[in-house]
Structure formats: structure tokens, C-alpha cells
């Protein structure tokens, strides 16, 4: 298996880790949005009541 | 349980004989696929792994047709309400449906294999093929019945069946095609047959047991 020069290999490695971090962050962001919506609905209910 | 299972089986076979919904479609699909492969691969005859692969992939895709229709009658006409009795009867229902699918597959293979030999196969058929077919049909039938029941619970049956059935059948395909390949090669020599048959048997064992165990929880209206 060829050993790529450091700068070329570095791009691929960085790409892989970026994919990983991006997946996590997107997931957390979506979760955060859901929680924000729940919090908003609770506030609405509290003020309605 | 055996009695209700055989009753359901007989009803299904009689229905299929009358309406001819599954077997002719599966058969026609298989033969058409062989013709397509002739054109697509631009080959007059196949042998070895190519022949084995074409045969098994075609059979698997054809089985999707049968699996999609397996619980169709019950779902569409509400016949399933009449069938819902004790858990033993539900297991009997599974056995009946799997047996019916087994019979359909066997009927299709009875005609499709000679067609395959005629159209595409270089070397001839060998008797060991029967054993491979038997084990493969067993796995196909039980997994097919399970998938059919699962997919029939929802509205998207025709979408869900192929998406669920084909990945689940991958180990079966690997084993069946692997076992068949030396049979279709000129030099033969089924040395690895035992290993592939072992894998097939393991697959069958796990999925028959699993389907029987889990089937009670479906159709629990």
C-alpha cells in the first residue's frame, strides 16, 4: 500500500475527521432545535394557562 | 397447529392454482431476465461464477414478486381477521405461508432451471444443485414469509419488500452462488460445497427459528 506524501495524505485524513465532527455537530444542532421548540411550547402553555 | 397450518396451506395453493397470481409472474420474470442477461452481457453461454451469479440473482429478484403477494389476499380482503386465533395458530399461519412460498419457488425453479440450461448455461446441471436449491428455498421461504408479514403491516408494501428482502438474502446469495459456482465450471470439483452448505444451513436455522419466535407478535390485531 502506497504511503502518500504528508501533505496529500493530510487532506484525506482531515477530510475523514471533518466528516465525523460534522455529523456530530449536525445531529446536535437538530436536537437543539427540537429542544428549543419544546421550550417555546412550554412557555406558550404557561402564558395561556 | 399442524392442522390449521395445512388447512391454510391448502387454501393458499388452491387460490394460487385458480388465480395464478404469483408463480406465472415469477416464472415469466426469470425467463425474461435470462434473455436480458444474454443481451446485457452479450454472451451466448455462461459458465462458472458468471452463470452461478446470473442464476441466483435472477431467482432472488423473482422471489420478490412472490413475497410481495404472499399476504396480499389477507390484507386486501380482510381475511386475516378470520384467521386470528391462538398463538399456536399464528405460528401455523407462518408455517403455512412459508410452505406455500416454498412450493411456488420449487415450481418456478422446475421450469426456470431447464430454461436457464437451454438459454445460457454452458455445462449441464448437476444433481448436487438439488441440495443447494432445497436449502436455499428453505431460507428464502422463511425469510420471505417474515418480510411479507412485516411489510404488509403498513401501506408501502411494494416499496418495503424489495428493500428489506434483498439485503437480508445477501448471505443466502453468497452461500448459494458460492456452492453452485464449481458445479457450473467445466472442471467441477465441489470441494467447498460443505462450507457453503454449512453457511446455508446456519442461515436457515437462525431465520426459521427467529421467524417462528417472532411471528406471534405480528398480526396481533
Amino acid at each position: 500500500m502506497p504511503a502518500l506524501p504528508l501533505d496529500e495524505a493530510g487532506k484525506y485524513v482531515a477530510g475523514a475527521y471533518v466528516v465525523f465532527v460534522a455529523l456530530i455537530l449536525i445531529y446536535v444542532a437538530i436536537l437543539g432545535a427540537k429542544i428549543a421548540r419544546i421550550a417555546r411550547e412550554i412557555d406558550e402553555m404557561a402564558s395561556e394557562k | 397447529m399442524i392442522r390449521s397450518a395445512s388447512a391454510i396451506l391448502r387454501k393458499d395453493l388452491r387460490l394460487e392454482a385458480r388465480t395464478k397470481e404469483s408463480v406465472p409472474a415469477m416464472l415469466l420474470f426469470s425467463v425474461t431476465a435470462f434473455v436480458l442477461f444474454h443481451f446485457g452481457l452479450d454472451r451466448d453461454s455462461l459458465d462458472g461464477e458468471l452463470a452461478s451469479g446470473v442464476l441466483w440473482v435472477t431467482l432472488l429478484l423473482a422471489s420478490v414478486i412472490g413475497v410481495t403477494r404472499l399476504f396480499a389476499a389477507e390484507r386486501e380482503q380482510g381475511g386475516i381477521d378470520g384467521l386470528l386465533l391462538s398463538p399456536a395458530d399464528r405460528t401455523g399461519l407462518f408455517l403455512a405461508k412459508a410452505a406455500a412460498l416454498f412450493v411456488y419457488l420449487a415450481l418456478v425453479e422446475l421450469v426456470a432451471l431447464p430454461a436457464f440450461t437451454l438459454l445460457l448455461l454452458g455445462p449441464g446441471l448437476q444433481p448436487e444443485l438439488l441440495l443447494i436449491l432445497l436449502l436455499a428455498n428453505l431460507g428464502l421461504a422463511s425469510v420471505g414469509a417474515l418480510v411479507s408479514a412485516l411489510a404488509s403491516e403498513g401501506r408501502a408494501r411494494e416499496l418495503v419488500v424489495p428493500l428489506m428482502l434483498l439485503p437480508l438474502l445477501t448471505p443466502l446469495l453468497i452461500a448459494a452462488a458460492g456452492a453452485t459456482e464449481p458445479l457450473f465450471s467445466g472442471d467441477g470439483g465441489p470441494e467447498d460445497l460443505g462450507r457453503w452448505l454449512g453457511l446455508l444451513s446456519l442461515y436457515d436455522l437462525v431465520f426459521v427459528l427467529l421467524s417462528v419466535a417472532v411471528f406471534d407478535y405480528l398480526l396481533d390485531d
Partner: protein
Amino acid sequence: MTYARGLKPLSIATVVATVVGFALVFFYAPVDADQGFVQKIFYVHVPMAIVALCGFVAGGLMAIKHLRSRDPSWDMRSYVAIHMSIILGLGVLITGAIWAKASWGHWWVWDEPVLVSFLVVFLLYCVYYPLRFSIEDPERQARASSVFAIAAGAFVPINFAAVRLAESFTHPRVLSQTGGDLPGEMRLTFLVCLAAMALLFVTLWKLELTSKHAAMSLKRLRTRLAAAPS
């Protein structure tokens, strides 16, 4: 049902483990003699794969508990575990492709039985969503999903064995990075990364369960408020 219990220490542990893991990968683990710097992908790709597969199997086990207890909270746990494993699975396939491209020049190779069998497993679990959401009645939806989760969970090891068997005939296995002996520093780094990935999975799993549970409780409260005269 307080899913949020233990969430804070878990999150802290996850962050610590992840940071330590990354540091080990880039500052401690030696560069591989054969594959060079590219081999570092192994520390994120393989833990993701292992955790995803365990997540699928765990989802199956939780589904068994759901069917036996008829408690819908087990179905929710199973659903979230499978849902997250599918996302991780996407990451496995992408990082696997990047690794393949960097190592062998192709975006996909059939040589790695783990990657290949993972593709099949991933394709299978993709049907989880259409299956679930094609069934309207919530009880039947949960039950059908659990049945699928169990069948698919049992399928994972069998599929791996089958693909391994197939590949061993066509591509005799040269020592691949996923098995074999790792030198001490690499092994430590790998284990830390594996632990970090597992912690991450459990933390996010709890987080999503908390969120889902809150949403459901809110809905129930809402109907109760609407029904009761003020």
C-alpha cells in the same frame, strides 16, 4: 422515566475522552510504516463501525424487551439506538471511502470484508424508516419495528460471517488494519478512541431520548389542559 440522569457526567466523560483520543491520534500514535499518515483515519473509522454495529444489536435487544414487556419506552430506546447507528453508519461508509481512496486510489474496494458487510447492513437498516412510518397505528408500528429490529440484529453477525467467508476465497486476507496485532501505542490510542465513540453514542442516545420524552410529555400535558375546564 428520567433519561437525563447521569447525562452531565456522561457528557463530561465524552468530551474528555474525545479530546484525549484526538490528541493521542495526532501526537502520540506513531505513523504507520506501510500506510503512512493515511492510517490515522483508522482511529475514527473503525470505532464508528464497531459502535454502530453494537448499536444495531443493542437496538435488537431492546426490541426484544419491548415485545416481551409491551412497554413503549423500550421501543423508543430501540428506535433511537437504531436511528443513531444509521447515522454513524453513514459516517462509516464515507470515512471508509475516503480511506479507500487514499490507500488504494478507488472510492470503494471490495477487499475489506468489514466495509462490504457494513454496506449490506446499512442498506438493510435504511428500510427501517419506510417500514415504521408506513404503519399508522402506534402500537402496530412499534411492534413491527421491534420485529424488524430483532431480525436485522440477528442478521448482522451472520452477514459478517458470510461476507468474510466469501472474501477469504477471492481475496486471501493480507493483514488488514482492522485485525491483527497493533503495537502498544497504537492499541492504546485505538482503545481510547473506541471508548470515546462509545461514550459519545450513549450520551447522544440519552440526549435524544430525553428530548423525545419531553416532547411526548408535553403533548400529553397539552391534551390534559385542553380537556380540563379552567
